[in-house]
């Protein structure tokens, strides 16, 4: 698959790099004795979980470590050009390092949404990079900008060059960032989680693009990611980072097929585990023949835009259109789709956080809420319904009030519903915490004392407090590291078995859905594209859209790259000429 030039000489060499963050409670060694080489036309993937120091390492290469961090040891030698440059010797604000940033080393960030200034046009921001280093006239720079935008496959660049970043979609913005990083033909491109914030199909396109540009321009790419699937798809070399150190590095095939270090093995294990259905789930597989608990019929949500004294009402946006499905007792139903597909809106309408425009939701539990037409519930009846159907949120950091202790957070639903207080409340909270794998003596701590996965456990404990029958988990594991992710999923499956729960699992991540769900509903632009058995949807989907979606998911096996050979829905649908496939 690699057709890179034969000249794979080393362009950047990092030896013994260490970065310290002197904080009030002591020095944090964020990066310890890290060494690696970047080679022309090759991609090195730096993988690791959050906090492993991979981003800090990458930013040290151009002296962009956030204060108070600083490089305390090691060398970063830029070997291209006439004389090698020792980057760590240059001051972080010196003109010498500025001549390297953007000129010889380009950088792409994770957040295309916020990486561009909303107050300057896209064209101006790219022009700036060109003018800064190539010292050309404005008109000349603009010509190059348009050429760059065309190179990163932004359609009709002349027409949209003077638009602002908020008028671009996430994928387009990331293309703009790439164009900006490539403005002066750098020898090295650093991509820091370039696709983490994007949908799978957009991710595949962006990774394709980087790969293609790399081959055209012969750049060395340093790819920072936490996703082993992406590593397998695009990298030639891999360095695995854990707690600031590179624990293992080598050829991608060796890392995936003969990992030596236990951490690499664990990371791969967690990734591969999510490639198939959970064993826990297969044990308890409940046929769809069991009792119905929630049924959704012809649910619609239309948003009206604009309107006002002087503005014409624009046509409605059909966020959700004619969605119907059933949830059986003990079943896990996955709802997958890209951003904007309406999957979250469906979840909110079932909870009646949003009022549907039309349709019906029927809940038939055997508890207090009984058999009810959800959309007609009064306020007090809704309260009972909300005890039976609960939400678990995506962001374990934002969904817990930082000023409440864990006891208050978990006990809150019990207090509000006047179920218990005082000593019994405390006992119940302790019981719930133990149920989600936390220790009861943690209940007096505040959320900031917990890591992401533990916080999500607190969120789950809160959802369980009222003994619900159905849990709607909206991207409940998206913000978590892959190893933590499978732990949380296992916890949910275990709880399901013990407490007889049913799940609606909203996710954009196909592997999570495959691991966790019995049936899957695929949504696109507010409509249901396909419903079916999870295994069937993930291996042999019938609809072209689902096929495109599934084939865009990176496969964590470098010998069997899936993403780069994916089917493209747009080309299937519109018959448009797709971008030339690699290889």
């Amino acid at each position, binding site marked *: 698959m690699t057709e890179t030039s034969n000249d794979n000489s080393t362009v950047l060499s990092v030896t013994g790099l260490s970065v310290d963050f002197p904080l009030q409670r002591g020095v944090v060694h964020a990066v310890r004795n890290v060494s690696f080489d970047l080679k022309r036309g090759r991609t090195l993937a730096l993988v690791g979980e959050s906090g492993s120091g991979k981003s800090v390492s990458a930013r040290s290469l*151009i002296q*962009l470590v*956030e204060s108070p961090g600083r490089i305390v040891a090691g060398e970063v030698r830029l070997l291209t050009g006439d004389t090698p440059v020792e980057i760590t010797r240059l001051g972080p*604000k010196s*003109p010498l390092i*500025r*001549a*390297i*940033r*953007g*000129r010889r080393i*380009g*950088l792409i*960030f994770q*957040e295309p949404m*916020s*990486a*561009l*200034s*909303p*107050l*300057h*046009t896209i064209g101006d921001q790219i022009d*700036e*990079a060109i003018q*800064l*280093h190539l010292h050309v006239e404005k008109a000349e720079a603009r010509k190059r900008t348009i050429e760059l935008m065309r190179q990163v496959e932004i359609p009709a660049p002349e027409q949209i060059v003077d638009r*602002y970043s*908020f*008028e671009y979609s996430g994928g387009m913005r990331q293309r703009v*960032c790439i164009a*900006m*990083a490539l*403005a002066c033909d750098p020898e090295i491109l650093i991509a820091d989680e370039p696709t983490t914030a994007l949908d799978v199909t957009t991710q595949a396109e962006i990774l394709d693009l980087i790969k293609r540009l790399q081959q055209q321009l012969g750049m060395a790419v340093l790819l920072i990611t936490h996703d082993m699937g992406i590593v397998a798809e695009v990298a030639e070399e891999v360095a695995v980072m854990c707690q600031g150190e590179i624990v293992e590095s080598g050829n991608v095939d060796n890392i995936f097929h003969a990992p030596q270090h236990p951490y690499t093995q664990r990371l791969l294990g967690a990734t591969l585990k999510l490639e198939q259905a959970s064993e826990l789930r297969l044990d308890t597989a409940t046929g769809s023949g069991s009792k119905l608990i929630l049924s959704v019929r012809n649910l619609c949500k239309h948003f009206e835009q604009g309107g006002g*004294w*002087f503005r014409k009402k624009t046509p409605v946006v059909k966020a959700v259109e004619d969605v119907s499905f059933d949830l059986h007792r003990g079943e896990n139903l996955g709802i997958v789709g890209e951003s904007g597909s309406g999957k979250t809106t469906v979840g909110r309408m079932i909870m009646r956080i949003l009022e549907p425009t039309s349709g019906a939701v029927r809940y038939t539990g055997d508890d207090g809420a009984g058999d009810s037409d959800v959309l007609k519930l009064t306020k007090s009846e809704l309260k009972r319904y909300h005890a039976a159907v609960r939400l678990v949120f995506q962001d374990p950091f934002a969904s817990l009030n930082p000023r409440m202790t864990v006891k208050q957070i978990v006990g809150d639903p019990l207090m509000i519903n006047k179920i218990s207080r005082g000593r019994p409340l405390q006992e119940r909270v302790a019981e719930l915490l133990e149920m989600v794998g936390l220790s009861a003596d943690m209940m007096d701590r505040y959320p900031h004392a917990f890591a992401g996965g533990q916080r999500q456990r607190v969120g789950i404990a809160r959802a369980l407090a009222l003994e619900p029958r159905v849990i709607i988990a909206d991207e409940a594991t998206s913000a978590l590291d892959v190893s933590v992710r499978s732990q949380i999923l296992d916890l949910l499956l275990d709880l399901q078995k013990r407490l007889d729960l049913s799940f609606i699992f909203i996710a954009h991540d196909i592997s999570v859905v495959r691991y966790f769900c019995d049936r899957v509903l695929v949504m696109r632009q507010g409509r249901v594209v396909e419903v079916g058995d999870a295994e069937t949807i993930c291996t042999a989907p019938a609809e072209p859209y689902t096929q495109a979606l599934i084939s865009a998911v990176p496969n964590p096996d470098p010998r069997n790259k899936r993403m780069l050979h994916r089917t493209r829905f747009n080309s299937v649908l519109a018959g448009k000429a797709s971008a030339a496939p690699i290889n």
Partner: protein
Amino acid sequence: MLTYVLKRVLFMIPTLIAVSIVAFVLIQLPPGDFVTTLAAQMSQMGDTIDPTTLAMLREQYGLNEPVWKQYFIWISNILLHGDFGRSFDWGVPVSELIWDRLGLTLVLSMTALIFTWVVALPIGIYSAVKKYSVGDYVASFMAFIGLAIPNFLLALILMYLSYRFLGISIDGLFSREYADAPWSWGKALDLGQHLIVPVIVLGTSGTAALVRIMRANLLDELYKPYVTTARAKGLSEWRLIFRYPVRSAMNPFVSTIGWTLPELVSGATVTAIVLNLPTTGPLLLRSLIAQDVYLAGAMILMLSVLTIIGTLISDLLLAWLDPRVRYQ
């Protein structure tokens, strides 16, 4: 952009009408009318007025008409003839009283505003960029002192100091010899000299507040990813700070322009009284105490109109500065 401006201007019209009605209602609230007040004044001075003259005056001012018609007369006099009615207290037409003072107030407030911005913005930017440096601590300390000192106290202190050490009396805006003289270079220079202390007094608390606001705004922006993007491009530190985060941090400032215009009229009254400045603040206060309804009404109307115009200006500026506003 043009439709946006047009829309904003169109939106102003109903607001202006509503505001003028409220101002008129305020004038009408005290019992009696202008003529009864006039008669009362006359009788106090021992004069009596012939009832037919009173009736004629009522007829002339339209006081026998229904309220809505009176409003119509009042507002059309203002709009068509610039006639705001007569001040009972001063015995002259309201318009004669306010225009002169409004001009001086405008000069004083604008100078204070410019002073505030020129001093506060660089200090605020420095404070944010060099967070927790010695300079930042000094600036923050001074800012808190500036915020904490009441304006009138500062005015008294500065008056004392300038008289004691410089021998300059900073009472009013003009020296005696220029007070009633026609405009000349000498008079303008004299005004400039007299402006220094009031501008410092009026500007201090504003400057202090602005330093804090700018620091906080900029700190929010400085660590955003787009700043790092600019840095990764190879831009020099100060250039990128001015080009990206400072520009974003300006937005809240522009929004506050809307409040400064009405403050021209009503603001800094205490300072103006202490420093004996011939501005509109003391005039408004006196008119309210004396129930000088037409004068008070005119000034309230003026205040409201200035608020609306100020809001319009800041909205337009904001739209010009921030494309996100413009494109909504």
